[in-house]
């Protein structure tokens, strides 16, 4: 997809500069001339939305860090100082706290879009694995960020999660004490989490750079899941076409974001986190942030501690092997009638695990959690490998241009090959 830049500076100074550092040409080839498949739907705008959210989080986070103090006896009070006395501090903090949730909402849509349209398949395996790494870094960053206000959920969430490492045989205890910097979660833990919470977003930005590089090298997947045959017929230049569509999507996403910042800023948080951390008093239910709930449900569904920890990490690690677990040559679920059904079952199971993770671990919740956990792995390890052999895919269009033409020829709403695809154009 990528070639030498067609950028030819006319100005003498620009020519001089370009022959020494072709950075303007790089920007031109990747953000202006870069060919984008014509048939992308709005699910393809979430990459831009995520880049935007990363910038929002870094900028708001840096300003918050100017007012915050990572010292256990005052951390809670400093956050309240930001909320009360810093000019627009309440706005900064609500942007940052809800921004984390928005980031995860966007990333989950982005991931499920990749799952639905088979964006992980050759030649995009490395692109996909880089995405899994970003997701892991995001989870680490969000977890450590939630510890910083030093409320009850911060403290006890940190205690529960760091204690997971004690399940490792022999060296577990030593690792946990090393993580804590002591014999329990305390001031040293808060301090190092703050340092890492400041570092990791820049690592995310670095991996995002690689992610975009890999994307621009192999080109974007598209709703029909077929390769670009002719750049002139199948694609449009990134600017103005994709740029405008992305900016529009970001503006709409900001309306959604604003709803939470201004009207329900504490909806996604937990009220216990407005109680200062108290090592002597354990909350009735320790619940992680909503975006961790499916994995929390998997952790709790295994009766053995080490088994639970392994299952939880395996649930994320299995995503990295997805390009080889899915044996079908066809990418898009539009042309995979059976896969489409299993995709939606998987969505229900994943959301269901999220709900179960928020409920107390008792009664029928435990039984359903176990069934769903088993199904989660069955989906990746058994269903996806087998489907490639069992399923008879629908015929693929010859090219993206043909797919677009066929859609317009049939007209109206009945055309969609993937009738259940969640698309809005």
């Amino acid at each position, binding site marked *: 997809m990528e070639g030498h830049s067609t950028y030819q500076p006319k100005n003498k100074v620009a020519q001089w500069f370009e022959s020494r550092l072709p950075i303007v040409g790089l920007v031109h080839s990747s953000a202006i001339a870069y060919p984008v498949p*014509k*048939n*992308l739907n709005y699910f393809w705008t979430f990459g831009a939305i995520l880049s935007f959210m990363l910038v929002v989080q870094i900028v708001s986070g840096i300003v918050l860090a100017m007012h915050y103090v990572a010292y256990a006896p005052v951390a809670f*009070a400093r956050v*309240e100082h930001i*909320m*009360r006395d810093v000019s627009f501090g*309440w*706005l900064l903090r*609500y942007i940052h706290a809800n921004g984390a949730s928005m980031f995860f909402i966007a990333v989950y849509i982005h991931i499920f879009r990749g799952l639905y349209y088979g964006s992980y398949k050759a030649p995009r395996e490395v692109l996909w694995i880089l995405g899994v790494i970003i997701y892991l870094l995001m989870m680490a960053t969000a977890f450590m960020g939630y510890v910083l206000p030093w409320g009850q959920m911060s403290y006890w969430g940190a205690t529960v999660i760091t204690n997971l490492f004690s399940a490792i045989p022999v060296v577990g205890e030593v690792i946990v004490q090393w993580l804590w910097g002591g014999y329990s979660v305390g001031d040293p833990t808060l301090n190092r989490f703050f340092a890492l919470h400041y570092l990791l977003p820049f690592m995310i930005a670095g991996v995002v750079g690689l992610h975009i590089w890999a994307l621009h090298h192999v080109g974007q997947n598209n709703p029909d899941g077929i390769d670009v045959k002719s750049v002139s017929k199948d694609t*449009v230049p990134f600017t*103005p*076409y994709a740029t*405008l*569509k992305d*900016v*529009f999507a970001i*503006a*709409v996403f*900001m*309306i959604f974001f*604003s*709803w939470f*910042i*201004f*009207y*329900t*800023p*504490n*909806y996604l948080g937990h*009220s*216990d986190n*407005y*109680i200062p951390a108290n090592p002597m008093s354990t909350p*009735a239910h320790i619940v992680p942030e909503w975006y961790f709930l499916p994995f929390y449900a998997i952790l709790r569904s295994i009766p053995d501690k080490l088994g639970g920890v392994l299952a939880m990490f395996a649930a994320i690690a299995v995503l990295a092997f997805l390009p080889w677990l899915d044996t079908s040559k066809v990418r898009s679920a539009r042309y995979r009638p059976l896969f489409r059904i299993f995709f939606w079952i998987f969505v229900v199971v994943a959301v269901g695990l999220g*709900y179960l993770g928020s409920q107390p671990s008792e009664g029928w919740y435990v039984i359903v959690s176990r069934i769903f956990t088993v199904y989660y792995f069955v989906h990746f390890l058994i269903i996806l490998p087998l489907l490639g052999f069992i399923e008879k895919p629908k015929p693929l269009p010859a090219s993206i241009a043909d797919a*677009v*033409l066929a859609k*317009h020829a049939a007209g*109206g*709403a009945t*055309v*969609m090959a993937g009738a259940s695809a969640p*698309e*809005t*154009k």
Partner: protein
Amino acid sequence: MTIRSILFGAAAAALLFVAPATASEGGGHDGRPPRLSWSFAGPFGTYDTAQLQRGFKVFKEVCSSCHSANFLYFRNLGQPGGPSFSEAQVKQIASGYQITDGPNDSGDMFERPGRPSDHWPAPFPNEQAARASNGGALPPDMSVLAKARSYHVGFPGFITDAFIQYQEHGVDYIHAVLTGYGEAPEDVHVQSGLHYNKYFPGNQIAMPNPLSDGLVEYTDGSPQTVDQYASDVAAFLMWVAEPHLDARKRIGFQVVIFLIVLSGLLYFTKKKVWKNVAH
């Protein structure tokens, strides 16, 4: 495609209108606090200054004899979007308290009248003193209490709450606890030193019933009842916990209107640019 978008939009719109109707039925029974109608609820909500001033009086005369509010400063009482006392009133309220300051040049701590820049003086010097005076129980700090308390909503209320912007779990809970005292049912054994309360988790609370009709004198003609006191002080505590709520909702409306117009303009620009491209 278009039809599907319209259907989706219609479903979303229907949800917006149906959700409040179903959600407002919840509460009031099975130990869940009833949902009151607060002046600061909803997208255009603002604090009721008179209510905050009454609530402040209840807080000052009743609550603050046991509860601290360390993040509340006297100066906050004069800020816009709060009880909005005048500068002179704030100074007068502050000077009614003796604050320990120092050390002075000879190294001694000394007492002086409070100033607007002082925070609300705590009733006890430390946690141990507070516990010793309250039968072993610690009266929680009230600075963010209205955001630190909640109650279980369950499915599907917890989803519809996001649509109807219900954020008043804490205030409803505080009002409910203050009005939830009464005789324990016969099958409940209340431990000595504890008091039966319908809405407190576990139903046994260390705090004795703090309010009674006529306890605090109101000068604006509002009813001097426990229910009125409870509402007023709960509203006041909401303000203490979230002093910038008025500004937040006002700015929020401006931001959302701006974004809707911006999105509209971007949508039509995008449409025009894509006009000649089949996609």
